């Protein structure tokens, strides 16, 4: 097998070359410029590691989610920390008929296991465009299982985790660290750093200004 053949098979990636395939436009040109494939992946896991609440982890992905929902794909929210507020979602262009929230009362016995199960089902469900999960600690084995589910289906799996989880190794091909810049400025600025990106050098950053 020649070197060209190997490269054609896309199993070998070369640093600095975008992975083959076209990403999902994020709605932020600066972000698309650093994401492998020029946008969000359309399948597989993406980890969003945010330092602090309210800095815009959701707004970062919302333009892409809105477009998926308007294409008729389902957006499935598993165990969100608060109520996804429909006036704001609809204001950002999300088709509310495509929103499904799966959550469990906190006193339910195995809420965490149930959430993971539901999330995995969502990842394997073809008509689901994106599945969102808010989770703190996850065993490596579970993460790998989720990544396999996300790769086998046609669903973009989003994992929202605290920044502290960045230290844990993860099979997710894309991991982003989020940090608010100069708290005093308005509009708020967000720094997105590629913690890990298959097909890209890690460590690249971009600065985004997010409207409310």
């Amino acid at each position: 097998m020649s070197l060209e053949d190997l490269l054609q098979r896309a199993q070998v990636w070369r640093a600095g070359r975008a992975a083959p395939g076209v990403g999902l436009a994020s709605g932020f040109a600066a972000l698309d410029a650093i994401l492998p494939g020029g946008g969000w992946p359309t399948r597989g896991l993406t980890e969003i590691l945010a330092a602090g609440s309210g800095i815009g982890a959701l707004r970062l992905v919302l333009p892409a989610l809105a477009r998926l929902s308007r294409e008729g794909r389902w957006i499935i929210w598993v165990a969100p920390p608060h109520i996804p507020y429909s006036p704001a979602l609809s204001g950002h262009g999300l088709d509310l008929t495509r929103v499904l929230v799966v959550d469990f009362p906190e006193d339910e016995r195995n809420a965490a296991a149930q959430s993971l199960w539901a999330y995995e089902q969502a990842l394997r469900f073809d008509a689901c465009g994106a599945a969102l999960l808010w989770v703190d600690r996850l065993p490596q084995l579970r993460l790998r299982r989720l990544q396999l589910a996300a790769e086998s289906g046609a669903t973009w799996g989003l994992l929202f985790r605290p920044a502290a989880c960045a230290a844990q190794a993860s099979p997710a091909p894309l991991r982003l660290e989020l940090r608010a810049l100069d708290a005093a400025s308005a509009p708020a600025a967000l720094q997105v750093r590629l913690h890990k990106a298959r097909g890209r050098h890690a460590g690249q950053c971009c600065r985004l200004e997010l409207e409310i």
Partner: protein
Amino acid sequence: MPSSLPLFDSAPLPVATRGPRSTPERWLPTRPLPAPTLWLCLHLPQLPLEVRTRGLPASRACVLVEGEGTRRRVLMANTRAATLGIRAGMPVGAAHALGEVVELERSVEAEQAALTRLAHWAMQFSPLVSLVAPDGVLLEVRGSLRLFQGVEGLLTRLRQGLKQLGYRAQYAVAPTPLAATALARVSARAVVEDMHELPRHLAGLPLAALRLAPAEEEALASVGVRTVGECRRLARADLARRLSPALLDHFDKLHGLAPDPRAALPVPNRFESRLELPWEVSHAQALVTAGERLLHELQGFLRGHNAVTRLLRWRLRDRSGHWQSFELRLTQPGREQAHMLLLLRETLMRMSLAAPVTAMELLVDDLVQGRPGEGADLFGQRPAAQGEAYAAFIDRLRARCGDEALRGVALEAAHRPEAAWRWRQGEGLTLAQRVGARSLSAAGRQARPLWLVREPLTLPTHEGIPHFEGPLTLAPERERIEAGWWEGPAPARDYFVARTPRGGRLWVYKELEGEQRWRLHGVFE
């Protein structure tokens, strides 16, 4: 084999050497009636035992017993019991000496109910199904052959289906109902499609297979007649005079010389089936086998009735006779056994049994005419296939996670932030529906957070400044929101966008009356 056999008096039969007199058949050369019909009989030799054991996997040796006191004997034994050496007719004590066996009482009513349900299940193969009590079901299949690709295709489907139901059957196909019935009783599998072939196949049939009245059978035996072929060599007039005209009629029907119409079993408008378990079960998961059998019965029933359903009602009986019930709801009316089984499995996994269960029951009375996936989408907004996949997905989640765990969101025409939205649940989740009025608060114009905090969180204050992860910085703009008088007593609030020291943006309000607390109501995530 002579080809002129259908004329009964014309030629000797292969069994003629054993006959009482070696004379040719004496019956008048009546032409058999034209046979547009073809009958299939299912004979269930093990029905009494299977009715009692099919609810659980055959993991234990089971025997069906009969009789009183010391005369209790084994009536039937399952395969596992047979490998222990247990045989029918053995005293029960002897059977126990051979190994650990489960003793089961015979229930004739349960057998008849099971046979009727089997007939309803078989209606998916033919519209004309009737019972041959106590252990047979008869189907008129001439019209179904094309659909099921001939007799072989039909038999294969039947065999697979019966296996899923937990029955073993002997099959026979013949041009007359009586011939099919009698052949099924003596052979595992017999197919006679042609009326001209029938006499040849019937000739060697022992009279016992006809289940004549004992007196008649004895009378025939006394003159040395033991098979149908031997009987045919008797003179018709003699037969009618010495025995009974009814017997002659029976033979005519058997050979297709006299019409033998069968009434179709009436069609019930609901499905109800109970399965007695051979032994008590204390884990809900162990009920999957019984559930699978019931679901297969249901699927056949629904196919036969060209119906689908949305609601499956289950009941479990514990050893004290108390019933525990639960329901399975389908988002889209259907009859797919695999899907229903998946839902049942998930539901059983979540369930804990109050007491060991002795019987399982399935009841379906919400029957909708039609095929699965037909006209299910009210507004035609999504392609049917995708809607179906979604319905199946939702059902699966619902079965495992419970009804309350799944919700959609919608807008409400209300001014107060907590009233400007609502959950969509149950039916609302799956009907493609209009999402509701634009919110009065005009989501487009005013800043609204993506997260709404479930219960507004009271924030501590230091020197008048609210704190959350440190002191909050308030933006200068404020939005005053007052509840309408019709919404009950709710103090007016001033809303602010606040920033945390780490750069996060929150939606907080200050109560304008009472304690004037600062509260966190949303997060601009």
